């Protein structure tokens, strides 16, 4: 209760995420989109006799793109968390500054897990071929 911010100051300083929790879900949503694309394209391609080699290479390309997007989201979230400049890894205080850094931290961690998730889902693309 010692460091009180006025609402006006808060909203000026940390207006970026006001009103929205969505941003922390961008990275896992990218994972979900990539996952669905892999599954549906392969299932449809196999059922309709599309050239699966092309589908596979296209999807590997999509994986690289998804990883790049997630890395970008993660990098921006890391910048918002800014553990180096603030020197604080955890943000338990009930003020706007800590809420700002906290959402960065959560977004960053979700980007890490989403990155790993995309890598996992890409492995079958690299290891398996064909529709059998």
């Amino acid at each position: 209760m010692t460091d009180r911010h006025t609402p006006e100051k808060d909203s000026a300083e940390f207006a970026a995420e006001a009103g929205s929790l969505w941003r922390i879900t961008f990275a896992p949503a990218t994972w979900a989109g990539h996952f669905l694309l892999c599954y549906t394209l392969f299932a449809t391609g196999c059922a309709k006799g599309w050239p699966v080699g092309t589908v596979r290479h296209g999807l590997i390309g999509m994986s690289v793109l998804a990883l790049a997007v997630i890395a970008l989201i993660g990098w921006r979230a890391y910048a918002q968390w800014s553990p180096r400049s603030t020197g604080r890894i955890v943000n338990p205080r009930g003020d706007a500054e800590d809420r700002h850094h906290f959402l960065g931290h959560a977004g960053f961690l979700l980007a890490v897990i989403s990155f790993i998730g995309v890598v996992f889902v890409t492995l079958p693309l690299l290891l398996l071929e064909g529709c059998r």
Partner: protein
Amino acid sequence: MTETRATRSGIPAAEGTYPPTEAMLAEPVPAELQRAQAERLRAAWAAPKGWRYWSAVNNTEVGVWYCMTAFVFMLMAGIMALIIRLQLAVPENDLISADRFNQLFTMHGSAMMFLFSVPLFEAISILLLPGLLGARDMPFPRLSAYGYWCFLIGGVFVIGSIFFDVAPRSGWFMYPPLATKDEGMGSDIWLLGLSFIEVASIAAAVELIVGTLKCRPPGMRVNVMPLYAWYVLVVGGMILFAFPPLIAGDFLFELERSFDWPFFDPERGGDPMLWQHLFWIFGHPEVYIIFLPSIAIAAMIIPTVARRPIVGYSWIVLSAVGTGFLSFGLWVHHMFATGLPSISLGFFSAASEAVVIPTGIQLFAFLATLMLGKVRVTLPMLWITGALAIFTMGGLTGVMLALAPFDFQAHDSYFVVAHLHYTLFGGMIFPVVAGVYYFFPFFRKKLLSERLGRWSFWLTFSGFNLCFLPMHLTGLFGMPRRIYAYPAGLGWDGLNMISTVGAFVIAAGFAVLAWDIVRPKGRQPQIPRNPWDAGTLEWSHDVPGESWGVRSIPHVTTRYPLWDQPGMLARMDSGRYYLPDAEEGRRETLLTSVIDAEPVQVQRVTGPTWITHLAAFFTGGAFIFPTFHWYPPAIVSGILAVACIIWWLWRDTARPPEDETKDVGLGLRLPTYASGPASAGWWAIWITMLGDATAFASVIFGFFFYWTARPDFPPDGAAHADGTLVALACAGFALSWAMTIGARELNRRGAVGAARLGLGLGPLLAIAASAALLGSVWTLAPTSHVYPAILWAIAVWVVAHSIVAVIMQAYCLAGSIFGKLTPRYDADLWNSTLFWHFHALAALVACAVLGLAPRLL
């Protein structure tokens, strides 16, 4: 965001001082005033007495009924399990018939999932969440009550069928063709009864999400809210995306059962695999919908017993949100043995392995908290320890089963039965029982017995392992699940006997627990207010209990306010914080902004009523009569249910207030009315429609699934929907939508007459469009092939929603005429427009699929 909307409508924004200064908080409240305020609050929030008690809607009452009902259903499903185990105790047993056995295992699974696990999450959250958030009640108490009565009626109907020998008997996942071709009404009872309960679940999810987002105490920003609230948010979101595919599946399934539309019949172009996909898109997230809230209870207990804040708050948020997402990428691992291409299996196998990471992270965060704290092994902690041990075992066999080659071997064997019971006991039963012991003083203002609790724990824990550990072996020795009898000498005999003995030891453990819960505790001395020395807000409850939730709504700036904000409790009790009074004798709670919980509005909350019972009763009729193929009474029930709901909304929601703003204490004045995104009702519609849109997307998915999976879809030379009528329908829906939006904008600008004209023309256009849509498929024969059947199903879906959409337009028109809806107080119109956004989008997609897709594919 919220302020701009409020200002545009002319309703004043919040004014005054916020956050409160230390000087304001330090100023004492005169004792006389305190007494008078408490008196008025008590009168406003009192639960009704005598037989009227059952008309209560307070979360403290409804939550307890909900929990106890779910607990009774659990005990019944447990007794079914005991009969199953008795039948399997010895080889070639003939204790019960094969048919009875099928009914028992189907009902055991269905009841444990749909009548116990998911409802219990809702029940506990309804009971607990307002306490955790220092709120007076949930934002829509009558919705909770309606959900509860629906659950009770539907649950009794479904579980009661076992006493009449007509229970569903095709397994809890109802695979066609076994379930579609099954004689008798068992499958219908499952489909309709459980659809009814799923609707109640979605209602609860809406309530809980809005409660978490909008009813937090001032100052409780997202980074300080209790972890339980994070889990509620995630699980509520998961329910919105997981249950609708099942509802869509039920819709198609019941159309096949009742009207012979061949969605799952391969002879007429259908495909049983569609059901498996829709079921497991629901079924796997469902496992996490059960697991996450239970582990959330652990996240509340562990800091208390460790006497320190949780380690890795952000990491636990990550794991909750991450698990929520990843759990939707696992469904095909229930279908590894169905012959899908191995690369598809690979994607799901990979995702199934990936979900272990966030799940593991939260367990490690718990262990780290325990390591760094000074742990007291209280009774709740004992149960949490058991949970961690058992869940880890189940998680490890889960990693094994996620590997497709291993799953090919173990599929449908007792190994799977062992795995799923380890995850559900460890991930759900044990943490929930820990929660029962931990929160019982909060619910009932009494303590449960330490001695009985330890007995119960050791009986359940040892009985559980005795019962289910051998099942891994039974499964690896080749015993398939769901068989009714087995020959001697296959190496299964002794293992089965051990499992049966274990099952009865578990039952003894639960008997002790049940006795401890219901035994009279009148002579127990008054308990301390905070018996575990916890730091979260629910332990500011009053002992003996009061039904006002909190005496005054505090300003919270820390994660463990009772530890970190000394003096807060005394100030809450003296009414020093917000809303300490109920001057008009009405129920009110505070709404705050989503991220930073700044106070934005005082919301009137509805009180005791019987209308929810009537609405639930008639809704029940609409679902239950069709199981007997009695369609006219079902339609009448449906109409009466809608009438009840309209009556309830008209009389008691979004009425223009007497005063535009209200003094809430500490020098703050808040508006008493909001419309659009600033209001709780708008969020509720938004969230409901997100779930509804998911269900519609699942039906559309069905169309494209047939296209990929079947070479004869659409069949050569098939008749298509009439293109002209589809185009007319499309135009009609778009125009009606435009009328609704136009009415909202005109009304807000004061052009009331023009707005009424729009609201009058809108329904006519929507009715004409619905007629055109039905007309476009009218000549197609839905029983002949799945292609006309799915076109019909899409049309029926859109027309059914049009009925609701038209009612909403008419409701707003009536509101405008009778003074409920004015240019300034226009929440109903905002909500109806929001519904129309979703409905118009769905209608346009439907028209595209009916009119364009067959010509393009």
